């Protein structure tokens, strides 16, 4: 920055330090959180702060794109996938590969030190030309970028379309579950149901005649036994069926048979 107006510089310094600290905190939080969702939120923090830093570096367009693409789209995609994989899946932070963590920390410290030290040395007295001229050349930051994209980097721009197509098709190939036959119509479903041995009518509702009408409580059949079928499948699969309290069952039977103590 060639101009010597100190308060502008101070302003930038404040922005920088606030955002830098937040960004590093976000990055560290991502690495340290046990839960994947927390990690995602932490890195979103980093990305927003980076957006601010872009703007501070005369890159307003990139700042916006960063918010829209990264924080908006990419992180949402991550969150979606986290939903699929299980939101509360958490990593145990105990390292299983022997020596991995120590070696990783040492190596990364080595590289980090080298990068920071090297960059610090190289850029100690660097020029800061600023982008005023470049931005102005075509009438603004966006125009300047557009000019470059459609001249110097036109081929790269065109070819990125290959990436996007690949990505879309790849996601479809891997994730889209195609069916080998058309889905059964309602008629077919109902025919299937009535031709089988299973229950033809409605399944019993859970909690009927029970003291609880919670969805996890099995229904009581007329003969006094309980019905597994009355509990929603996901709960059964998870083994979340509460044990049946037989005192309750007895009590209900007494009521239905009209006996009173």
């Amino acid at each position, binding site marked *: 920055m060639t101009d010597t107006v100190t308060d502008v510089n101070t302003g930038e310094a404040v922005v920088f330090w606030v955002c830098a600290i937040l960004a590093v905190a976000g990055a560290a939080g991502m690495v340290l959180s046990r839960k994947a969702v927390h990690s995602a939120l932490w890195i979103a923090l980093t990305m927003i702060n980076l957006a601010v830093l872009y703007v501070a570096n005369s890159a307003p367009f*990139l700042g916006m794109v960063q918010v829209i693409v990264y924080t908006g789209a990419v992180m949402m995609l991550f969150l979606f996938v986290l939903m699929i994989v299980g939101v509360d899946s958490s990593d145990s932070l105990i390292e299983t590969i022997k020596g991995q963590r120590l070696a990783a920390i040492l190596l990364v410290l080595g590289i980090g030190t080298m990068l920071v030290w090297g960059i610090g040395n190289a850029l100690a007295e660097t020029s800061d030309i600023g982008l005023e001229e470049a931005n102005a050349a075509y009438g603004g930051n966006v125009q300047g970028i557009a000019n470059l994209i459609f001249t110097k980097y036109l081929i790269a721009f065109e070819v990125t379309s290959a990436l996007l197509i690949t990505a879309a098709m790849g*996601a479809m190939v891997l*994730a889209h579950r195609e069916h080998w036959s058309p889905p059964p119509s309602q008629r077919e479903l109902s025919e299937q149901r009535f031709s089988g041995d299973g229950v033809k009518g409605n399944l019993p509702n859970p909690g009927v005649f029970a003291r609880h009408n919670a969805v996890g409580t099995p229904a009581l059949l007329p003969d006094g036994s309980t019905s597994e079928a009355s509990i929603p499948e996901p709960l059964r699969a998870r083994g979340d069926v509460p044990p049946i309290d037989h005192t309750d069952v007895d009590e209900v039977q007494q009521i239905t048979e009209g006996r009173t103590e």
Partner: protein
Amino acid sequence: MNPSNYVMLSAVLFSIGALGVLVRRNAIIVFMSVELMLNAANLAFVAFSRMNGNLDGQVVAFFVMVVAAAEVVVGLAIIVTIFRTRRSASIDEPNLLKY
């Protein structure tokens, strides 16, 4: 303020990203760490763009965002596929190929 601070910040973020790749086992977090590394590179490009006084760096950063978006889609698709067969997103578990 010396703009090289931005580049140093980017180096720090880059290193943290690399560390994340090395120590986390959840494939999604590993992948987030890679994204962090790309973001760090972007920050460096943007800062250098300003220091060099041309917009090329910003354009590169823009392209990186596009590339990263595509990469994320493919990567997450692969992770989801693996998750569906293995019921796990840990990258240590697919470990049949070795030695």
